[in-house]
């Protein structure tokens, strides 16, 4: 893969140079170079091999490091809501965060960090606070099914957080941010490069107080708390052909929901990856990963910290790439993962385990410079369910002048989890929730068509998508058992339209506008229980300029979410009847102004909820806000002080 990466990077440089030469006859300023770099970003998530963003047959949205800085976000949920339409984070029971991405829930969107899965979930969602943005180089988002590459859970899309890499001898960034409700964020990132060894260390601390909402609602108080994390990645290249990457990370979060106890969440992860290059055309990657995610209750009165949940994932992976004739790439691989789950939701806090294994193959065919076709498939096996699944994907890109046309079929699936198969949980004496070992896997057929137009500093793409989802797994009332039970439901069809416009002017002004229309189809006469808002849009208008040693970046970003009326099962009866619930539309805007006042010293001032939106009623999908808030931050790149002017 390294050889492939080198080839691609060289191609990037050449392509970028060629493009920039055609943009202007005069010298390009740094802004335009940055724009050219954005267009020529190398992405890996869509194909599992490095590919130029503009050349990838899989439409991939990249949130760059510069975009992450402009958003001034603390974790992935803040960032995704700011940057992407069609994404909504709301609350489910016990104020646990719940994702809806174009009709898909948190358990149908696969979150990865440098391509690695995450252990642990709460109410079907990973711990988004764990995905802080310290050390993040870019985020790649691939929408639609991707199980032919990534297996289970890649039903509605894949979000891959990729760590930044630096070629400088050393870099040290220290940053701090203070905002409303005593919100504090402190971060540090150190990278070192010494010959064949490089190291990257990041740490972040975040705290926010609990506070009451200024009105009635499904929730009336925001539960505050704090979290911190530290991550290390060590790279050693003992010989030119071999690259070894070791990583380790620890994360801790405490939430203050109850007076007498604290909810605690911990994660310990580690891994070792080796990439061996046989020849410029062939490479092999071997990888071992460990991830343990625990939940515990800290009982303040007795001082005891009692674990109630532990999910441990051990995985082994091998990926082989071979390039035929300099242009066709064969990727073949296999994974084995052991999944251990101890949970308070099992009878007597018991333990369930299973092993999953898969083989995959993908052929990336570049017949001409204009036509690229990728075909792939993956076979997955799950020991506990005794279940097998075959996923396929066929993607194509055809370039017509400045227009890229893409078409894709991809299969997605989600295997029933150990929780969904074996849950045996007493819900506060009110009812039981039972697992179902007979569950079938959730599966989807995803079709996408898109057209992308790029000219100089303008990029526009529009596409349509259709997802046919079968056997979606959910809970339903089981009269015989007198409780809730996990079960498969019938087909759900989700279709829509996706449009994005990016434009930048030489003066330093730029904009990004994105819009998504999503429609979830239900059969005539059936209740519309989905809470997906049909129209959503995000907008960003920014301006970046340098005057000598002073630099200014101002970014105004907003999101607009339309209203939606849904049918919800009502507790006034035995949950067999529904009632109409109307969730109002709303818009939220944020203004960030960053000023580089000294070489390496940047001060950021933020105004969140700029137009002072306050929900009349705090639904679980209303924004957690009491109105306009302000924040200030400072970031220091220490190495800049030692650079010669």
């Amino acid at each position, binding site marked *: 893969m390294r050889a492939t990466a080198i080839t691609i990077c060289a191609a990037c440089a050449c392509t970028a140079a060629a493009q920039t030469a055609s943009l202007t006859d005069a010298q390009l300023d740094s802004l335009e170079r940055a724009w050219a770099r954005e267009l020529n970003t190398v992405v890996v998530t869509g194909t599992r091999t490095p590919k130029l963003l503009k050349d990838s047959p899989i439409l991939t949205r990249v949130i760059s490091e510069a975009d992450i800085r402009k958003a001034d976000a603390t974790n992935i949920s803040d960032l995704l809501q700011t940057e992407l339409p069609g994404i909504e984070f709301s609350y489910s*029971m*016990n*104020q646990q965060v719940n994702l809806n991405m174009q009709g898909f829930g948190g358990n149908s969107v696969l979150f990865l960090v440098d391509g690695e899965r995450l252990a642990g979930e709460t109410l079907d969602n990973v711990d988004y606070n764990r995905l802080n943005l310290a050390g993040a180089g870019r985020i790649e988002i691939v929408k639609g099914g991707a199980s032919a590459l990534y297996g289970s859970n890649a039903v509605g899309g894949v979000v891959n957080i990729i760590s930044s890499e630096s070629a400088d001898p050393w870099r040290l960034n220290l940053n701090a941010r203070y905002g409303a409700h005593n919100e504090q964020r402190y971060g540090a990132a150190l990278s070192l490069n010494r010959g064949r060894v490089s190291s990257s260390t990041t740490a972040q601390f975040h705290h926010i107080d609990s506070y009451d909402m200024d009105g009635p609602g*499904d*929730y*009336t*108080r925001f539960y505050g708390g704090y979290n911190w994390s530290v991550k290390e990645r060590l790279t050693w290249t003992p010989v030119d052909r071999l690259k070894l990457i070791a990583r380790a990370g620890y994360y801790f979060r405490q939430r203050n*929901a*109850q*007076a*007498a*106890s604290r909810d605690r969440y*911990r994660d*310990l992860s580690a891994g070792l990856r080796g990439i061996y290059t046989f020849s410029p055309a062939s490479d092999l990657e071997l990888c071992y990963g*460990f991830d*343990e995610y*625990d939940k*515990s*209750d800290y*009982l303040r*009165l*007795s001082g*005891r*910290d*009692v*674990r*109630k949940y*532990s999910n*441990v994932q*051990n995985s*082994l992976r091998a990926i082989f790439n071979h390039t035929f004739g300099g242009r066709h790439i064969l990727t073949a691989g296999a994974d*084995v*993962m*052991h999944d*251990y789950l*101890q949970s308070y939701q099992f009878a007597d806090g018991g*333990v369930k*385990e299973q*092993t999953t*294994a898969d*083989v995959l193959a993908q052929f990336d065919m570049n017949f001409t410079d204009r036509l690229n076709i990728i075909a792939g498939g993956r*076979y997955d*096996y799950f*020991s506990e369910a*005794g279940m*097998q699944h075959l996923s396929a994907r066929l993607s194509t890109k055809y370039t017509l002048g400045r227009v890229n046309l893409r078409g894709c079929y991809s299969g997605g699936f989600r295997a029933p989890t150990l929780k969904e198969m074996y849950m045996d949980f007493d819900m*506060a*004496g*009110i*009812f039981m929730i039972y697992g179902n070992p007979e569950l079938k896997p959730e599966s989807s057929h995803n079709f996408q068509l898109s057209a992308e137009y790029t000219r100089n500093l303008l990029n526009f793409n529009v596409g349509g998508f259709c997802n046919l989802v079968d056997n979606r797994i959910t809970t339903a*009332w089981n009269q015989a058992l*007198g409780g809730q039970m996990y079960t498969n439901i019938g087909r759900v069809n989700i279709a829509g339209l996706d449009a994005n416009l990016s434009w930048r002017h030489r003066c330093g002004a730029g904009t990004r506008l994105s819009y998504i229309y999503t429609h979830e189809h239900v059969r005539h006469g059936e209740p519309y229980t989905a809470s997906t808002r049909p129209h959503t849009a995000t907008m960003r208008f920014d301006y970046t300029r340098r005057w000598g040693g002073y630099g200014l970046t101002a970014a105004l970003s907003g999101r607009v979410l339309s209203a939606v009326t849904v049918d919800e099962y009502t*507790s*006034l*009866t*035995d*949950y067999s009847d529904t009632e109409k619930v109307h969730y109002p539309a709303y818009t939220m805007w944020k203004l960030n102004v960053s000023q580089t006042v000294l070489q390496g010293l940047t001060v950021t001032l933020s105004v969140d909820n700029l137009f002072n939106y306050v929900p009349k009623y705090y639904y679980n999908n209303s924004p957690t806000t009491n109105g306009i808030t302000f924040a200030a931050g400072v970031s220091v790149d220490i190495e800049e002080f030692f650079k010669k002017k």
Partner: protein
Amino acid sequence: MLGKLISCVIVPGAAVLLPACSGIMGGIYDDPLEETVAGYGFVEASDGVRPGSIYIDATDYTRWTYIDFSAMRIDTLHVSDPTPAEWDIAIHRYDVKTNGGSACATGATGFDSPLLTPGDMSPDVWTTQTIVTDMSTMMDGYLSYVESWYSPVVSQWLDVDKSTMPPVYTLSGKVYVVRTADGRHVALRLADYMNTAGVKGYMTIEYLYPFHP
């Protein structure tokens, strides 16, 4: 065929190769203390000067736990059973009733506080829709109650806000004074409502008896 190959070869192989299957952070947690029936009752006796403590299992919605401070006796009986011959207070989950007595809240949060002085005493009230005996009928749109006497004063020792799910529990931390029907006094405070595993309904009650106001 491939499935058999995986289950027979790769799965056992993976189990051998992956020694940290059950995780490595277990050592940082506390194990719940093992609880026995002998652990319930008067854990430490009060002599009227130093406070004592009582630990009871009040997890069952269908039972009252009757406490007799004079005899240091505890009886746990079904809500439909006749009451014991002698008792001072009874506890059902977090609900409290007195045996014909009255109660008040003090400003004290400890037994050595100068604020530990009783104010106006309030008798129990008769309630028909407070003492829940079956939560499971909530799915049918109602809760099952038993009629009973009830001390709204002492029952404030734990606030249970059911407007959200799960409810939010807040201990008042206050010391309450109960005057029995025959004029004795006991001061008591709910110290904890969970056991060492975090299971709710296990009550640790600190008390001072006899209490001379």
